[in-house]
């Protein structure tokens, strides 16, 4: 994982410091007061040769020094920290719900091959492949926020937010509904399809036939033997799909004006605010890495071959 981290930082460096003609322009805002400019020059080693710049860059990124936004003149790390909880909330719940619904659907579909469940699973899987996430978001926005105004059109909380604790939570949930629904609808199909296919593979194995002959209930077969055995590849796919979930949440954050890191990256791109772009990209990559790390741990817990 450490290697991946360094790789991410290196890519960041290459993209932001070696690609533009003038790398100084990606860190220094010419409108900053002179002292602030000098400070940043020193911290990022802008006058130094490439290798020293790289070392300083790595040091800075690891310590969380992400520069100062051109637009707001605030340290990027502060801005991101402000928005990180929202992104984690959206992405986390979306990942969980889409996986839960998708996997459950896939399990039932595989156990009843050819049934309505099965068709539903395949259908939703294909559907997820075809419909763009942002279109789902736009449709939900159009129907449930403009046409029938039962959900808010933008934002993370109402203004003013309810002060009382439960009401506050419900307010957040109310704002969370449409974005969550968007990502879930877009993603659960893939899970369903993949789970179904994996299970179908497994269920035709000999040891399953044996188990059935032994008289074990379908339920036991399905969960104890079938599902357990597909957990490893499932978790692998979970890890692989994490960047996709962040991508989905990026678009959703933009559509629903969710105050998160994905939207911040979008705003940074729009305004060509290089420090913001670098910072967001880095943080999102870190989040992906962390999720992968958790997936790895999960994998080791679940794969009987690796245990102890």
């Amino acid at each position: 994982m450490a290697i991946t981290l360094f790789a991410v930082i290196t890519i960041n460096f290459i993209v932001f410091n070696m690609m533009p003609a003038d790398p100084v322009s990606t860190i220094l805002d010419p409108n900053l007061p002179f002292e602030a400019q000098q400070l940043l020059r020193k911290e990022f080693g802008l006058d130094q040769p490439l290798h020293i710049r790289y070392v300083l860059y790595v040091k800075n990124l690891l310590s969380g020094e992400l520069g100062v936004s051109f637009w707001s003149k605030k340290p990027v790390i502060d801005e991101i920290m402000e928005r990180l909880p929202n992104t984690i909330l959206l992405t986390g719940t979306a990942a969980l719900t889409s996986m839960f619904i998708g996997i459950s659907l896939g399990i039932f579909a595989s156990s009843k091959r050819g049934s309505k469940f099965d068709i539903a699973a395949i259908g939703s899987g294909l559907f997820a492949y075809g419909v763009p996430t942002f279109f789902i978001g736009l449709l939900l926005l159009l129907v449930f926020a403009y046409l029938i105004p039962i959900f808010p059109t933008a934002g993370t909380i109402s203004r003013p937010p309810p002060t009382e604790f439960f009401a506050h939570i419900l307010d957040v949930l109310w704002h969370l509904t449409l974005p969550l629904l968007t990502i879930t609808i877009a993603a659960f199909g893939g899970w369903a399809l993949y789970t179904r296919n994996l299970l179908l593979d497994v269920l035709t194995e000999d040891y399953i036939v044996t188990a059935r002959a032994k008289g074990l209930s379908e339920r036991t077969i399905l969960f104890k033997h079938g599902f357990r055995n597909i957990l490893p590849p499932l978790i692998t796919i979970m890890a692989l799909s994490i960047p996709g979930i962040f991508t989905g949440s990026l678009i959703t954050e933009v559509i629903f004006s969710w105050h998160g890191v994905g939207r911040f990256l979008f705003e940074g791109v729009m305004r060509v605010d290089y420090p913001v772009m670098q910072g967001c990209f880095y943080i999102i990559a870190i989040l992906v890495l962390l999720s992968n790390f958790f997936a790895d741990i999960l994998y080791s817990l679940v794969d009987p071959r690796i245990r102890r």
Partner: protein
Amino acid sequence: MTTKKAKHRQYGAFFRRAKDFLTVYKNSKLGMAGAIMLSLFIFFAIAAPLLTPYEPIKDTYLADSVAMPLWMTMVPEYKNAPRTTEIKFNANYWTIDESSLNSNYFEVIQKNDRLIVQFSKVNVMKENETHELMMVVNFNYPYDPPSTFNIKFELETTIIGEADYTVELFLRTPSGINYNLWNIEGINQGNASIKAVIDSRDIPLKMRLGLNPLSNLAKNTFSEKGEYELIFRISSGQLDNSDECRLDFGKINLKILGEVHGLLGTDHVGSDIFSQLLFGTRISLLIGILAALLAISIGLLVGLIAGYYGSFVDETLMRIVDILLSIPGLALLMVLVTFLGKNIWNIVLLLGLLGWMGFARASRSQVLSLKERTFVEASRALGASNKRIIFRQILPNVMPLVFATLVLSIPVAILTESALSFLGLGDPRISSWGRILYNAYSFGGFSKLAWWWILPPGLAITILSLSFVFIGHALDELLNPRLRKR
């Protein structure tokens, strides 16, 4: 064994295999559905210029902004929705209104499409008389009130001496209300060439007519259905003996922007959405296929090399794949597009460069399993070079996987491109489907509930992607032995 006959036999075998394949393929309902949908899209892409007379981006204000599709007029509520009306008032259509005072003081010539009014002291009967000429033309307006109209005409004045005259343009409604839309006074000698534009959006015009600047002038003036009149009123004051005046009116046009248009209405600048949709097909197909080809090619190459040569090469390549896979693609894409510029070729390149990893993995595992098969061992024993083994033995067996994955990668490319365009990072000069949605989102399509603007592009993306997915799914089921029922 490479005699002609052997080659023929090879080709024959290939065609037979292909024919068999197609027969089996026809049985797959999804596959056929996908193929039919795809061919439809390809047809649209190729035939786009023939299917619509409009340019998707250049032709603006074909109707008013965010106009509904024309077939909405079947709904009773919109039966009389204003259609785009353009009337050219030829010189011959104008008649002299009887109520003009002493109109014979004026000489009216209608020739060569130009309406010319001349007057001088010569025809004056009495001093201190009022002389006024009213030229009238009428037209029918049978629809609901529009939101925008404009009247354009040219006027060349030639004056000898000093002439004192006024020209006014009125619009008279069926119920007799007069709107003084334009006037001019000529005082001194000289010539002028005026290109007059009267536009219902001009605030000074609204104020002159005593209306609230935020009101809609077109809705006010054209509030009735029926016969309207345009009246030019020319009045002349005192002239001296040597004074002469000649007013030469050129083309006089009235344009009323409709609120219904075409198959799918218009966008915020009045461009035809159906044209944008058709031309967008080209973009989606082009980008989708090219980007997928690029990604698959790179992935195949990497997979072949990694799988076949194994050990160190394999390790490194797969490590790179892992690292690149854990980078959020769209985020990187957004950033790179800002650096490299927003044009189609950059996008195709980037999509290809960021999309090869998945297939690299898959093809690698395929190669790994093939590597250990006996026929490969046999070839190696016979002394075949690595290159020959890769290309002659392994590659043909990987091809089925390639096709299936290729077809499934195209929708990914299409979806990613449309997401980029939707965010505003696509090529602004082309009308991709994502860009149509970007316009709808940014320019008020949602608050106007313009479903004809929002649904078609999204549905188009969905159906095109689904057609590839169906085909890919069918291919997968046919070519991939794993999923076969036992």
